[in-house]
């Protein structure tokens, strides 16, 4: 391989276009190196952001062939190998307004982040001149979530956000809510959790893209599960998400499997479910569900029930 082609999406505030740049192939370089080389040797108008160049400032995320990466941390060789090509398409992050070329606008995101009250609500155990005591175990709970560098990769990859910009919070915002909800120094976890709940906490599609792409390997899906559980414990059961979860639990407990016919009714209530009749009819027509089929208990249901009994006895982690 002698040359690598980067096809970059450009935007100048009015028009959009793709522009191709050819670079001599060099082994062991990062994507940021290539972008810098283009800007410094081929085209001074190419605009992208970067600062620390070692994966801590979160400025340099871009999409390569549709997937978001930190440019400074991503090796070009790896990209060429992964996508089995000598031609890469670079675009700005998804789910952000674009300012110019690969530079996106963070201001609306930071505005939204305020929803979850992303700051410590100090408990009475601490005070400004004495600080807090916190056990090493409690510190460990916040060690990983505070790794977040606000790079926006999770927002770009988020399946729900791509469908629903307004009704859902970016994964990094939910991470903030989690980070304070589990901080032993915080007096009011529900103040962080409730806004997350109100902004679509249960809508996560479980596509796991945020988890697999996060450059800091934060367990965003696990955090989401925690926030849901915690919201139920706060008594927030009367919402679609919680009802859906309870319907799952009940169905599996009684029969060892789901009843797809009653599940929507338990989740959304009778009236809303009626709106879904056309959809259900289509499913019936295609043979996807059978309305007359009432699931029987599965074989080994005793085992399933034992699991439930056991789970009930287990203490919170």
């Amino acid at each position, binding site marked *: 391989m002698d040359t690598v082609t980067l096809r970059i999406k450009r935007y*100048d*505030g009015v028009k959009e276009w793709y522009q191709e740049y050819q670079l001599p192939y060099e082994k*062991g370089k990062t994507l940021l190196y290539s972008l810098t080389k283009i800007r*410094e040797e081929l085209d*001074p*108008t190419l*605009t992208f*952001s*970067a*600062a*620390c*160049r*070692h*994966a*801590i*400032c*979160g*400025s340099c995320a871009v999409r390569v062939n549709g997937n978001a990466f930190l440019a400074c*941390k991503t*090796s070009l060789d790896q990209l060429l190998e992964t996508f089995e090509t000598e031609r890469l398409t670079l675009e700005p992050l998804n789910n952000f307004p674009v*300012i*110019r070329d690969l*530079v996106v*606008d*963070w*201001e609306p995101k*930071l505005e939204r*982040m*305020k929803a979850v*009250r*992303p*700051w*410590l609500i*100090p408990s009475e155990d*601490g*005070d*400004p*001149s*004495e*600080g*807090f*005591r*916190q*056990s*090493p175990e*409690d*510190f460990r709970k*916040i*060690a990983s979530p*505070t*790794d*977040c*560098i*606000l790079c926006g990769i999770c927002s770009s990859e988020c399946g729900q956000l791509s469908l629903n910009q307004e009704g859902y919070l970016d994964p990094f915002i939910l991470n903030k809510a989690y980070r*304070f909800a589990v*901080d032993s*120094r*915080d007096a009011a976890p529900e103040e962080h959790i409730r806004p997350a709940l109100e902004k679509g906490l249960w809508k996560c599609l479980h596509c796991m893209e945020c988890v697999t792409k996060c450059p800091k390997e934060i367990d965003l899906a696990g955090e989401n599960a925690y926030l849901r559980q915690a919201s139920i414990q706060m008594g927030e059961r009367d919402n679609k998400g919680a009802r859906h979860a309870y319907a799952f639990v009940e169905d599996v407990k009684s029969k060892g499997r789901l009843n797809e016919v009653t599940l929507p009714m338990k989740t959304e209530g009778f009236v809303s479910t009626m709106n879904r009749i056309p959809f259900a009819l289509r499913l019936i027509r295609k043979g996807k569900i059978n309305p007359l089929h009432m699931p029987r208990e599965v074989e080994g249901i005793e085992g399933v029930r034992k699991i439930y009994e056991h789970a009930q006895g287990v203490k919170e982690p």
Partner: protein
Amino acid sequence: MLSYDIVVVGAGGAGMMAALAASEDPDLEVAVLSKIYPTRSHTGAAQGGINAALGNRDPSDSVEKHFRDTVKGSDFLADQDAVEFFTSRMPELIQELDFYGVPFSRDENGRVAQRPFGGASSPRTCYSADKTGHVILHTLYEQCLKRGVKFLHEWFLLSLAVEEGELDGLVALDMRSGAIHPIQAKAAVIATGGFGRIYWNRTTNALNMTGDGTAACFDAGIPLKDPEFVQFHPTGLASSGILMSEACRGEGGHLLNKEGERFMARYAPEKMELGPRDLVSRAIETEIKEGRGFGEGIGAYVQMDLRHLGKEKILERLPQVRALAMHFEGVDIIEEPVPIRPSCHYMMGGIHVVDYKTCRTPIEGILAAGECACISIHGANRLGGNSVADVVLFGKYAGLGAREIAKQRSLPSGKKVKKEADRWIKTFDRMRRKTEGIPVTEIRDKMAETMWNNVGIFRRESEMKEALETVGRLLEDYQDACIGDTSVRYNLAFVHYVEVGNLLKLAKAVALGALHRKESRGSHARADYPKRDDGRFLKHTLIYKKGDDYILQYEPVKITKYRPEERKY
């Protein structure tokens, strides 16, 4: 015209602490402008920690010991009244940060954990694994959100307007719209960080550490103090200059030469790898010079070996360091030693602060804090973990100082700043239209090369003269620079043009200060004057800029307690 009571320039640790302190007074209108989003600031890169004599790990530690270590580390060039003020207030500041929510690592009693660091006689560096600056930066940002601090995101400070020795206002470019604004202000806190980028790629600093605020103050008539003192961090990754935290040495890493020898035994037999940075950096360069390094020329290096710490300790205490070595040097420190070499890390010198309690400069209305400022508490050499501490502590006092000024001063007329803005509007226009000339990056790279080769770790007269000449020529070339981008919107080429102009001005001051300091002290090591000379040089350099002329003066060091003695480790 935009007007505020207080404008803070920079949203790193210093800027945000200043903003928090200033905005405690609800009657004052405060704005923070920053060329990058606050959480992108370079404070986030600080890995190792922040010093405060809490005595959690070593009950025999004290503020006094921190004071003494800092003065000794500074090679007696620090102002001792300021150092005492600093060290005695740090313990409480850590508690304040804890109360803000900084996730510090903890000891078994739940107190803030502390680790040993170079040049410290007790383990007093508080940390959060190896991402201390990152978590402090994000926590301060959270506090700013809580308080509703007003940020002007991606606004670039171009210059300061001063009339009759007082601040008239600031000129800034709103990068997104391309509009250039004059801003009236009663007080401005400059907190724009360091300028390690005078060495361009041979630095641990972020791409944007170009000393814009320092240069703006310099142009406005505030002298630069001690610019010749440049800290080289001993453990930059050999191929990229990216920092391997001092925590590596703190946790017990060994430095090895090609013979597999722990060569620090020759230079600091007691402290070994935990000697202060200047000493360790020179030791490494000496090893390389004398042929005991690996590789050759600019690619030469020595090794840092961490394998004996074991996997568990490395994963627990140095996870980020391990990831950095893996991604940027292709080495897993659990399995192999990592190639390292010194890299420019920190500027001890900077904007001349005349009153450490308020961070005022000689010009009424302008204050400075953080790495851009020189108070001086670091003197000729800063100790690891003392900068983030400096940044948050003096950031806070600068915020308080600005509040005081804003209460006393009325809003200046704004006439001068309006004119200054018009001048910038013309410059922006001209540079956008200019189609031919010398590329800015070419000028920048030549500057970095001459600075690294001639005003680097070891210095001599003839080389520094050469650097001065080269920088002088580059300043002329700069008049004919071309940016190659006509855009009004988000024109980073223009921003970079201004940054490089700032670097050139500062590089010249570094070389000039270094040339005239005919002694070796702290980070300033001269091959032709290898000894410290207290008789002639126990004093601060002050460089003034009058038009294109640089004028050199000196000022005495404040010594309250510790008489200079030989600095041995």
